[in-house]
């Protein structure tokens, strides 16, 4: 039982990072049909900027804020300089652009920062909390709480604010949204800002546990994409569930079956789910008009 709880805790912790990346994918996809493979780089920027600001003597809260701002600026830049000029290009062309952006950002990070692994002290000490024979780090609790807060905040934005409602409208029908006066181009910009912020917060929170370096984004993008597809593309709730499921599958697979095949277990389940439910867990079937 303690073993089970232990796997559950670490699965949820890893899963919530995947969920945040998947959420970022979903927001941008809903506004623009773009799959942003540079999504993992926002997480990297969040962790790296915080670390280097902290080592320069800046207090942690300000360092974290700085990282958030940098990530948002990069998000805006990505949208304005790389995605917007390619407006109207095919989805696969846009995907290659985001892959190029991801390589570019990794290159920048390697030059501006370095290629080493970094971490900073956890926010609330290192004394593990004991629950039912298992232990959980205070930082893990913070990661979970942060993820929950982001999900709740996002839900509030979507359902309570004008911008959020415009985002929902844009996601459901772009042309109709434009007809009722929604500036869909601006909505795409907002979705890039939100995605960058969500990724950066994830990176800031998780770096004390998982460490970070210039290269962490690739794997996160891969897992986040898989999680988003598992949940059903374009479905924010599905993205969160997908992320948590992938994280749990990984840790339980590694714990009970084989640690060297932990990714295999996650992907086998994803393949299995897609064979039965080709639109993911929560996605709707698309209809092709001829």
């Amino acid at each position, binding site marked *: 039982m303690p073993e089970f709880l232990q796997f559950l805790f670490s699965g949820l912790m890893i899963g919530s990072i995947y969920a945040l990346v998947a959420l970022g994918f979903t927001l941008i996809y809903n506004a623009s049909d773009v*799959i942003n493979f540079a999504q993992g780089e926002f997480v990297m920027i969040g962790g790296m900027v915080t670390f280097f600001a902290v080592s320069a003597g800046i207090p942690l809260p300000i360092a974290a804020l700085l990282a958030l701002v940098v990530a948002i600026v990069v998000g805006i830049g990505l949208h304005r300089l*790389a995605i917007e*000029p*390619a407006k109207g*290009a*095919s*989805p*696969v*062309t*846009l*995907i*290659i*652009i985001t*892959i*190029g*952006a*991801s*390589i*570019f*950002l*990794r*290159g*920048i990070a*390697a*030059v501006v920062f370095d290629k080493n692994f970094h971490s900073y002290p956890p926010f609330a000490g290192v004394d593990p909390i004991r629950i039912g024979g298992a232990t959980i780090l205070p930082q893990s609790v913070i990661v979970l709480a942060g993820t929950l807060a982001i999900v709740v905040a996002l839900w509030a934005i979507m359902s309570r604010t004008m911008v959020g409602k415009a985002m929902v409208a844009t996601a459901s029908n772009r042309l109709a949204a434009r007809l009722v006066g929604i500036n869909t181009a601006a909505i795409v910009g907002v979705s890039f800002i939100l995605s960058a912020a969500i990724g950066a917060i994830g990176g800031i929170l998780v770096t004390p546990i998982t460490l970070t370096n210039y290269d962490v984004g*690739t794997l996160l993008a*891969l897992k986040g*994409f*898989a999680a988003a*597809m*598992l949940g059903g*593309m374009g479905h924010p709730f599905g993205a969160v569930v997908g992320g948590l499921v992938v994280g749990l599958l990984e840790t339980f697979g590694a714990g009970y079956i084989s640690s*060297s*095949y932990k*990714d*295999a277990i996650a*992907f*086998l389940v*994803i*393949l299995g789910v*897609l*064979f039965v439910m*080709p*639109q*993911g867990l929560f996605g709707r079937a*698309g209809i*092709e008009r*001829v």
Partner: protein
Amino acid sequence: MAGFWRSYGVVAAIAIFVAVFPYLTDSSYYLRVAALVFIFSIAVLGLNLLMGFAGQVSLGHAGFFGIGAYAVAVAPTHFGLPSWLSLIAGVAVAGLLAFVIGRPILKLKGHYLAVATLGMGILIAMVFTNEARLTGGPDGMAVPRLVVFGWVARGSVTWYWISGVTLVLAALLAVNLIDSPTGRALRAIHDSETASRVLGIDVARYKLIAFVLSAMYAAMAGAYLALFDGLVTPATAGFLRSIEFVTMAVLGGLGSILGSIVGAALLTVLPQVLTVFHDYEHIALGLIMIVFMIFLRGGIVPSLTSLFRREPS
């Protein structure tokens, strides 16, 4: 007749280039890079049949590439099979695997297909990493030289000719396929699956043909690369390699034979050239990808072709 020249003219141009290039340079380094370009071109050509003509994405083709590469490493070392037979076996195994998993996987569409093929590629790469007893694990393993009737294939010049001739044959096969009823069916599926089905095209069967064929192209290229390098590691089958193949195909131009080769050449030669920038290599590579895709969004070859066609008017 114009169609004939457009199709076979490209193959002829490739053949002429392969035949003439060695006379322009005697640097074995250039021939080595050219051989690498030819090898990657074979894989990208196959992927382009799937992506450019049938309109189906694959983010897992490095898996098939890896099967070819590990076939010529594992079979001769552990089972005493001759290399040339291992190569054929590797291509056959990749084709068979594609045939078996193609049916369920190709029912998925768009991004779901992308993630399923991604998972497939990662599963294959993971087997190579973890079955260390056979594959040498993360460090990889040495690949014995290709020996055909007592003649040992080694060196850049030899592999230049082997890969160059194979590329010409692969392009010829691709052109023939595209001009055949199968090719027409594939293009129809690309335009609209539903419309194709209404017209009586067996959509699942034709997608499967393209998938199996592209897997075999990839495995062939993988086997060549392993035999040429004399070494194979799990990175051969890795996710980044799959992404690289897709990038080559899109950058060069989906649905273009010449585009596959231009894309492969660009992404093979660029990193070699960019090493002079040292730490700035990745920044430059990423930037070039973005700029090319913004300004030549249909891919290099199709965009430039339409540009030149329109110019005189």
